[in-house]
């Protein structure tokens, strides 16, 4: 270390950092560093989402057929009119809402049960946790193919259990049921892990006190554990609802969206890559974005779901 030399150092009072001026310089440097460190991440995120969604908004106001790109022209809100008056959109929206609502509800119940098992597991905790992480980590398309083959007559062990001649994936309601099953299988573990973390925050003494007071297991769960877990439950529900609303992979592989099983994401994909209609496809993209924003708003405003990370500023 070189000893401090030079007039400036000598002139500066030794406890410089403790003077108000010094602190504010430190704070300013800290602020600069903070902004500098965040800038790349923020720029990337905005450039790849905000700009394209704006561009989608612009594209959605044009008649734009990819087969005849030179004929693209401004049509105003006509694409939205076409989508919103079409049965396909409402059918897909209905299917998406149904799949979202049912799968998230089932996942919440199963996930809670799973979390309780993992929380109380006296032995084999590691094994259970490892097993549960497999559905979380596995590629959705892989799992979807496994389910698809299992339920297809000819290749499937599950189809073999059904009465002769039934092909559940080719009928609307059974197919939707199986899509929900595949979705629930894949994502319940994630829900369970989030709930498990919430469960760990419930103080043991409180639960034991309720037990001493003679509360049954059901009462303890309903009156003590669940209310204390409310923040964790809301976060898990918010994440999973938005995730389920975007469902694409499972449907693409299981039914391809045929027989009235397509979600809004499938509809958007088909309009873009099968019908090659960029205008209509973009209008659907913008509408889906609107739906997702609405769901998030409802969760945050109505249920008061705490946005993760939005903790009080402290260090």
């Amino acid at each position, binding site marked *: 270390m070189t000893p401090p030399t030079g007039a400036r150092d000598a002139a500066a009072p030794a406890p410089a950092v403790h003077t108000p001026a010094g602190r504010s310089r430190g704070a300013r440097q*800290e602020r600069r560093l*903070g902004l500098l*460190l*965040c800038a*790349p*991440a*923020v720029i*990337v*995120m905005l450039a*790849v*989402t905000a700009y*394209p*969604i704006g*561009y*989608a908004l612009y*594209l959605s106001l044009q008649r734009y057929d990819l087969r005849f790109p030179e004929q693209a022209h401004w049509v105003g809100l006509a694409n939205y009119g076409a989508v919103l008056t079409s049965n396909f959109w409402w059918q897909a929206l209905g299917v998406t809402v149904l799949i979202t609502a049912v799968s998230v509800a089932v996942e919440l119940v199963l996930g809670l049960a799973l979390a309780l098992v993992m929380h109380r597991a006296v032995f084999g905790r*590691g*094994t*259970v946790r*490892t*097993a549960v992480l*497999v559905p979380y*980590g*596995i590629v959705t*398309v892989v*799992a979807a*193919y*496994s389910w698809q083959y299992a339920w297809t007559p*000819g*290749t499937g*062990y599950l*189809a*073999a259990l059904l009465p002769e001649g039934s092909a559940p994936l080719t009928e609307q309601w059974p197919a939707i049921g199986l899509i929900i099953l595949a979705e629930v*299988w894949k994502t319940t573990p*994630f829900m369970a892990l*989030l709930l498990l*973390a919430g469960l760990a925050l419930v103080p043991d003494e409180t639960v034991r006190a309720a037990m001493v007071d003679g509360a049954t297991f059901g009462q303890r769960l309903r009156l003590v554990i669940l209310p204390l877990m409310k923040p*964790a439950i809301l*976060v*898990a529900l918010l*994440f999973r609802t*938005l995730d389920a*609303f975007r469902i*694409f992979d499972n449907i*693409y592989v299981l039914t391809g969206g045929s027989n009235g099983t397509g979600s809004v*994401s499938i509809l*958007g*994909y088909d309009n*873009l890559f099968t019908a090659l209609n960029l205008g209509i*496809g973009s209008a659907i*993209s913008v509408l*889906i*974005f609107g739906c*997702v924003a609405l769901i998030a708003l409802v969760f945050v405003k109505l249920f008061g779901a705490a946005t*993760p*990370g*939005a*903790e009080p*500023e402290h*260090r």
Partner: protein
Amino acid sequence: MSTRHTRALTGWGIANLVVVLYALFPVWWIVALSFKDPSTLSDGDFVPRTWTWTNYRGIFQTSEFTRALVNSIGIAVIATTIAVVLGTMAAYAVARLRFPGKRLLIGVSLLIAMFPPISLVSPLFNIERVLGLFDTWAGLIIPYMTFSLPLAIYTLSAFFREIPWDLEKAAKVDGATPWQAFRLVIAPLAAPGVFTTGILVFIFCWNDFLFAISLTSTISARTVPAAIAFFTGSSQFEQPTGSIAAAAVIITIPIVVFVLLFQRRIVAGLTAGAVKG
């Protein structure tokens, strides 16, 4: 041991067993299919009558699969690296520094975590065609790293909050240079969190299907999940079931390895970001 205790133990044991079976049941079926002989593929047997490597040999002979595997690994590794580096910088700032716009950053990443990817597919498809990024590695790396950044920032900032940063000061008092303090004290403490985040981000990129089928058109950038969906049988009368099953098992292997080796950390990483808030 009292009978009541034994019974409770058995009950939980059975519950554990049910959970394990639930998790592994569909996985087993795709493994079983992948080892079946083409002639017995459609027998519906739960366990293959004869085990064979035919399907695996078959897919490794086509560039359709091997090229896709290279694409998958390359794209996921590069996207993960960039996302983790940018995420580490931002998360350090979020966890340790005081600066305006912190809430904005958190808000923006939350918005992006919830963003429906399909909404980006049509504009990105057009933008990437114009920029010449369509059907290239970069064309997939860009959306992947963007969508994994919120995950990286949340997880890492939760990990960084746990680090006892005073140790850095203590090391400096003991005469360490800032670089030594970072390399010998802080880096070893931060490494597990960074590593875990890397695994989670990798799983995310590895899993993607929608971008992979929308933003590629040939084997030059198509990843395995997308390639599987475009597999054709060796003749037009043959279903590609065996090939799909074998390819599916291959891309499941890294996930299973990660889960087996790092389950404790993965669980910590998954829950840290969501609950600590």
